[in-house]
């Protein structure tokens, strides 16, 4: 008891929280600077395949993304479970890709247009038929730099 009395007698000084907002603001600015806004709502579920020979995609402003996969579960009632293409926020057909590429190109700086990369985020269970169609359309739109989005595979042999 006496111990408790002692501490309560002295009285714990309150920590000064005046600098707390500053700290939080600092964190806030850090996140604002380092991150990119989520632009699209995914309407298809995509689990990209694993690979080892992957490279990082620099400069997000040069990258346009095409998603291909099954519609998400709540959308399957209306759109079925066949793999679909998603451009920006909507489902699309291969024919729409050319317009998509053109409009993405127009948004870019003129110097950057040649470096435009199309990132293909495709579910690993999708069949190649639709993927080939998309690739053909990309060739027609002469968006030739592509990137098959994939996750880093951890080499099990290296771990052992």
């Amino acid at each position, binding site marked *: 008891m006496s111990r408790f009395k002692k501490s309560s007698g002295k009285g714990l000084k309150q920590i000064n929280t005046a600098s707390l907002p500053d700290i939080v603001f600092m964190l806030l600015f850090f996140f604002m600077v380092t991150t990119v806004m989520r632009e699209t709502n995914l309407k298809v579920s995509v689990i990209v395949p694993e690979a080892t020979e992957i490279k990082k995609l620099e400069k997000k402003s040069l990258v346009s993304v095409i998603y291909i996969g099954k519609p998400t579960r709540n959308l399957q009632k209306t759109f079925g479970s066949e793999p679909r293409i998603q451009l920006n926020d909507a489902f699309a057909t291969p024919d729409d890709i050319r317009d998509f590429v053109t409009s993405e190109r127009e948004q870019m700086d003129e110097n950057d247009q040649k470096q435009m990369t199309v990132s293909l985020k495709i579910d690993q269970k999708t069949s*190649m038929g639709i993927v080939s169609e998309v690739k053909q359309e990309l060739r027609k739109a002469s968006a030739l730099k592509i990137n*098959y989005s994939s996750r880093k595979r951890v080499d099990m042999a290296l771990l052992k």
Partner: protein
Amino acid sequence: MAKREIQEINAGSMADIAFLLLIFFLVATTMDIDTGISRLLPPMPEEEEIDDDQEIRERNVFVVLINKDDDLFVEDGFYDVNELKEMTKEFFLNPSDAEDLSEKRELTTDYFGTMMVSKGVISLRNDRSTSYGKYIAVQNELAAAVNELRNELCLQKFGKKYDNLDPLNEAEADLIADAKKVFPMAISEAEPKNVGGN
């Protein structure tokens, strides 16, 4: 009229507001870095031209087929994906100058001097029903084979792996370009068609 003393604004809730903003940005933003296998698609042919003008001999083509059941057919039989990398490397290197592996030609580069390089081309073909996962697995193995060849080449000549070369460093950028000339990522993909697979 006595001037009223300006009251200090209570900044106690400032932290709460800042936290709120912070959490909003945490939720609304993405931090994940996009990674993947980069490829360059061949440009669309201008007209209906038959691209047989540059005749490639059969021994110089490394045939890789994936059928609708995701079976992998390489050159003369069915193989596992794990075997593909070694086969590809052997095809390009052709250490014993075998008749059925790729031919070689002389190539002179600034960094590697004159050496014999392969004329080989990988022909990758898949069925419409092949799964994308399998396709990427095969693409990955082919890329791994070429990267390993480049690694070995650079390690042998300069004691530094190709992967560790810095493209921003001028001399190393030239080295990268030369290594690419010696071992190009020569993957040709046929127009999609039904490879079939019974």
